[in-house]
């Protein structure tokens, strides 16, 4: 796998006239866990969709693996939506076989081993699974893809604390963070504090701070939660 890279230069995204993102530039290079942190409505989702090639910037450039992004970037990017995005008529088994056929980078073995660990019923239709299990299954699909870039939009939001902990564990266990670049958004910093290598703070569609998490702790002598409170105030 090539070294993962995400590159944004003067990226602005407007919906009608309303700007959702304003003049964002940064470059993320190398594997690791990158957290996009900010309140709801700060532009996190828009940013991640732009990176995943599912939106076009109104101006500026978004490149992943040195190529401008489009829907076709999905061969390098696994995107985990915050929505219930699975086909409800499939079973977990059908879902995994579907992905195995459709995505050459998909590891069926990895998917099934995660499923076994989660004790999911592979024959049950997805629409009959609990919300937590649907979230887990969605994650299994994203984590089974051996692609350089993983984009996860609010993987923890709207779930019970226990499920959230479980999901974090699943990500840590199965994301190949020594090779993959995992970028995830959340507004609950405390929960992911210890998992982040790198943070990107967002406010009102702007990127206000982008730094290595340990460097921030060292420099400021305070937690990311405290830093977030400081910079978002």
């Amino acid at each position, binding site marked *: 796998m090539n070294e993962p890279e995400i590159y944004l230069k003067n990226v602005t995204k407007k919906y009608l006239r309303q700007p959702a993102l304003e003049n964002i530039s940064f470059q993320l290079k190398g594997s690791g866990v990158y957290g996009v942190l900010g309140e709801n409505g700060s532009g996190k989702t828009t940013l991640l969709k732009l990176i995943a090639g599912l939106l076009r910037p109104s101006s500026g450039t978004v490149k992943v693996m040195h190529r401008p992004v489009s829907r076709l970037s*999905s061969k390098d990017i696994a995107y985990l939506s915050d*929505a219930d995005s699975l086909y409800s008529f499939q079973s977990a088994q059908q879902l995994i076989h579907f992905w195995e056929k459709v995505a050459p980078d998909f590891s069926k073995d990895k998917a099934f081993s995660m499923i076994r660990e989660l004790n999911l019923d592979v024959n049950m239709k997805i629409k009959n699974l609990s919300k937590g299990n649907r979230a887990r299954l969605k994650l299994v699909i994203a984590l089974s893809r051996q692609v350089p870039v993983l984009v996860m939009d609010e993987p923890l939001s709207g779930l019970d604390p226990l499920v959230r902990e479980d999901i974090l564990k699943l990500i840590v266990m199965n994301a190949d963070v020594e090779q993959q670049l995992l970028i995830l958004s959340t507004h609950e910093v405390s929960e992911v504090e210890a998992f982040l290598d790198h943070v990107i703070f967002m406010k009102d569609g702007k990127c206000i701070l982008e730094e290595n998490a340990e460097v921030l702790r060292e420099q400021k002598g305070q937690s990311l939660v405290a830093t977030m409170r400081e910079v978002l105030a």
Partner: protein
Amino acid sequence: MWWSLYKKEWQESLFRFAVSLALLTAAYVFIYIFMERETPLVFAVSLAVVFLHIFYLFIMLLASLIKEWKENTSHLWMNLPVKGYVLLSAKLAAAFTQFLISISYAIVAADLILQRAVRMFEDSAAEGLTGIISMLVPLFRELIPWVLLAVTNGALQLGIAAMFIFIFSKVVRPFGWLAAIVLTVLTNYIYTWIKNIPLIERITEWTPLLKGEEIQEKIYSLYPGGAEIMDGSEGIVTNVYLGQIAAELLVLAGAFFLISWLLDRKAEL
């Protein structure tokens, strides 16, 4: 890869397909039973059946795409590491298979209905008309491939139009769908105009498959009175050329790849 997508589209659309078959069955039963009353409703229902088939791909593809977005599965669909033409052709093929099944069923039903109609009229028809009535079934059977061809062509055009309108609505927001409808109508208008340019006509008129005059002859031989009725309307008798069909398919394929390109490069979630 493609088969998995095709299978998924089948699974997704199965319910819609079943509903449409059930509705059609009700329609056929209705026509079969009520045709002797000669109510205008029978005629209306028959017309609806024909229209349903012409619009079949339009409705089904639009429904499939709208559902993909409404249920947020588009987040996954758009992220499939597969080229746009593969995604869209799987949808088109699934709907087209269902269309073929549905229209085959319609032809069988029409044949049965026609046979019953002929039996009914044979008893009551005036002397001079028995000839024409007795030839209705064989004529229907001979002409049905051409009707099928025309309906399929129309259905495909509308199906491609549905995909264009929907995908364009994800390219230009808001009101992309409106712009797409206008563009579709405009394109169709221009296309018809181009088709009728004598030079283009000459290029596409090769390998005639169906000769309009032969059909006419056949009708006249069975019903000599027809020649007088049709007199002076020679202009409407046309031929169907393989070249025309090829041109038609080529244009549809071009439009299809344009839509795939839009999906890959321009469409937004």
